């Protein structure tokens, strides 16, 4: 778009006319994209309360009129199938799609004309090439020969893709403002990236920034192709290869579910064939977008698994970072782990604050297969992938057994297990169950089963990942049997949940997760006590074991005793352990004498106990340094 056009749009006259005319350009009227991208002029990076970001979004997608039938940022549907020499395929995506143009301080797609996002032809060709890799003939026909640098024998072209209709996730919601109910237009295109693993695991106490990004919300995309000889091109074959190609995901962030599940309009989603599939039902406090819109986001599964892998590795080694980065990705390499959440039902209750969700779906997990021309190396890669898959499946069980997924996962759903509290206040926690089709996935029915499961997983971690020096991290939630104790009992209802709301316990940082800090109040010019939200050092879970019974599990981390001090009542670890014992909780695993645990020394890695392991997990490989 030319300068003058851009300025006309925002009502600034172009200076093209005569050099002599003196125009007043008010810098405050310059569109956001044309400003210096620094705070004070235009800062798009941060997802918090960011007016610049809102203004920028408005300049991008606000329709001119409320009932504009064809807003500028939306494209009409063109003729599908063969149209002259162009062949078009329309694909719907069930979740979001992300692509990054590499410009700006914010992840955003390439903008085509009128700000309509555009997916480059080279990205589509890359997908196509991947799908053809086992068929050299098709590869030469459609993509050309990479080795001999000859173009496609068919004169085949990839023209990229663009969304049609609304991709900005626009919807009208009724909100209460100043006591009145009004209709407000909201957009869900402003997405959030909120990295918090350092904080969750206790590696650092920093408060993480939430970054904004732009992703296309449940878009319908049109992909365009052409060939030099359209009449003699097998378009049906092209379509089949293409549908196969997009199963692996389109665009970026596919490991967390972006760009997955694309399908033709009249057909269901193609589900990727991943080796681990488990059907879950879950409910709890919903994640929200910047605008407080609730949205159940599949990337929370990856975040949960990453957090637990961090904890488990931290308990047996100080060198877990490479393994974590290899599996989950880092700024230099993409994730080997692939996750696809196939949502079959979702409901939000937005009347309550915070909004809650209840969902059902199937979680599909895979580890990318690494390829090598060397046969020996290939065998090593495949063996490593096998043990990675087994390990990740156990980590998934661990996440499901010990807590839950997503926001507020350390607590049980109060809606189910502490109704009196929710009727007066608000929902806390979450509750996850296996769908009836997958009940056999987990065979934990008793305290003994639980003990064997935790012991088995710990042994796998220690045998496969622990380093010679047998030292581990001192993080708050490092999974080391010296620093953590697990208790459990079999029950029909929660006996423990009320303890978390006990006047003294809830104000003990390790239990209630709140710390009182001194903050300087500028208005009064005095220091005041302020509550700061942190993380509890206790996990609580009600694991369903059939017959309306639950294993009530409480996991206590006690390596940092300072967090167990109540401001007036002193150390609360003993009173808390006494209180859960009085409720029938029995020791299961970990440190049997947490009260004698001193946090000064670095915990060592205990020698293996002689428990019979239920899981045949002979480690195949020692971890390797990351591949350069």
């Amino acid at each position, binding site marked *: 778009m030319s300068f003058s056009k851009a300025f006309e749009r925002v009502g600034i006259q172009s*200076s093209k006319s005569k050099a002599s005319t003196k125009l007043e350009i008010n*810098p405050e009227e310059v569109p956001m994209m044309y400003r210096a991208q620094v705070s*004070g002029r235009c800062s798009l990076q941060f997802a918090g309360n960011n007016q610049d970001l809102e203004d920028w979004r408005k300049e991008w997608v606000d329709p001119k009129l409320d009932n504009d039938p064809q807003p500028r940022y939306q494209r009409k549907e063109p003729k599908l199938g063969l149209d002259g020499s162009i062949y078009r395929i329309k694909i719907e995506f069930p979740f979001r799609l992300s692509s990054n143009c590499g410009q700006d301080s914010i992840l955003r797609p390439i903008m085509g004309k009128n700000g309509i996002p555009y997916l480059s032809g080279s990205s589509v060709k890359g997908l196509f090439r991947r799908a053809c890799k086992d068929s050299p003939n098709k590869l030469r026909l459609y993509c050309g020969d990479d080795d001999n640098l000859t173009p496609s024998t068919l004169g085949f072209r990839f023209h990229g893709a663009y969304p049609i209709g609304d991709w900005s996730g626009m919807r009208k919601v009724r909100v209460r403002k100043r006591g009145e109910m009004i209709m407000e237009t909201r957009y869900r295109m402003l997405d959030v990236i909120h990295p918090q693993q350092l904080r969750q695991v206790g590696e650092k106490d920093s408060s993480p920034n939430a970054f904004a990004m732009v992703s296309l919300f449940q878009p319908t995309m049109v992909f365009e192709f052409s060939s030099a000889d359209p009449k003699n091109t097998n378009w049906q074959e092209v379509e089949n290869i293409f549908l196969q190609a997009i199963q692996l995901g389109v665009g970026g962030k596919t490991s967390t579910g972006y760009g997955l599940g694309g399908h033709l309009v009249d057909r269901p989603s193609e589900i990727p064939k991943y080796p681990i599939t488990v059907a879950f039902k879950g409910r709890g406090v919903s994640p929200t977008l910047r605008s407080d819109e609730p949205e159940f986001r599949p990337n929370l599964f990856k975040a949960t698994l990453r957090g637990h892998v961090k904890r488990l590795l931290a308990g047996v080694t100080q060198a877990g970072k490479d393994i974590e980065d290899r599996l989950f990705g880092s700024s230099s390499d993409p994730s080997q782990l692939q996750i696809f959440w196939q949502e079959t039902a979702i409901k939000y209750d937005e009347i309550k604050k915070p909004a809650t969700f209840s969902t059902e779906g199937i979680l599909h997990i895979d580890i990318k297969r690494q390829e090598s021309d060397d046969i020996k190396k290939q065998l090593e890669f495949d063996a490593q992938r096998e043990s990675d898959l087994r390990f990740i499946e156990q980590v998934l069980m661990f996440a499901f057994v010990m807590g839950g997924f997503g926001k507020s996962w350390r607590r049980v759903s109060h809606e189910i297990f502490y109704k009196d509290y929710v009727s007066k206040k608000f929902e806390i926690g979450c509750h996850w169950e296996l769908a009836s089709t997958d009940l056999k996935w987990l065979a934990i029915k008793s305290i003994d089963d639980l003990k064997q499961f935790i012991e088995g997983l710990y042994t796998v971690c220690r045998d496969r990942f622990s380093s010679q020096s047998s030292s581990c991290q001192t993080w708050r939630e490092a999974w080391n049997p010296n620093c953590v104790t697990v208790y459990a009992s079999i029950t029909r209802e929660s006996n423990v949940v009320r303890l978390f709301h006990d006047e003294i316990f809830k104000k003990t940082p390790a239990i209630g997760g709140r710390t009182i800090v001194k903050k300087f109040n500028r208005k009064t010019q005095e220091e005041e006590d302020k509550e700061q939200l942190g993380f509890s050092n206790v996990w609580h879970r009600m694991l369903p074991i059939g017959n309306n019974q639950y294993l009530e599990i409480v996991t206590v981390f006690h390596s940092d005793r300072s967090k167990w001090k109540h401001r007036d009542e002193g150390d609360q670890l003993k009173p808390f352990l006494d209180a859960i014992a009085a409720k029938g909780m029995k020791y299961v695993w970990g440190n049997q004498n947490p009260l004698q645990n001193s946090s000064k020394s670095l915990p060592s890695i205990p020698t293996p106990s002689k428990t019979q392991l239920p899981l045949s997990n002979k480690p195949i490989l020692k971890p390797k340094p990351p591949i*350069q």
Partner: protein
Amino acid sequence: MTTTNKQDAGWYPYNLDHHAQALVIKHRDEKDVLIESHKMRMAVAYGLERFWGEHLRFEREKKEESKNKGKYWRDVWQILGKILEESDITLPDADTKVKFDDTTKIGETSSAIWKMSAETPDDYRIALTVLTQLCDSLVWWTQRYRKKDKKVKGEED
């Protein structure tokens, strides 16, 4: 190359190519800094204010790599200022004295840039044209002098 003697009438290339070459050589040893040449060429499309703001955006970041990128952008702005000075065009903040946390000064510079486009549109257009040409040269030299990081996959030689 033509001489820089202003007496020569006719086309005058401002030695853009030499300036670009010197800049690329200066910054080629820092990791990933030269990638910015391509981004500079793209940023030109948004006009002078946004181009000028980029070095401030990088300078406020903590990472050494970002700071180095910021220096590269700043150097380009300074060179542009010097080149334009030869033809009596004053580029706002030509000596890049404004700091990223000085909101008032940032506002003043933005105003000065837009004032330039309104009151002396020819100067503004010349500045933008020269900058575009300079960025083209930067890209050209980057393609020849950039050190490849071994870990970068899928890049053309």
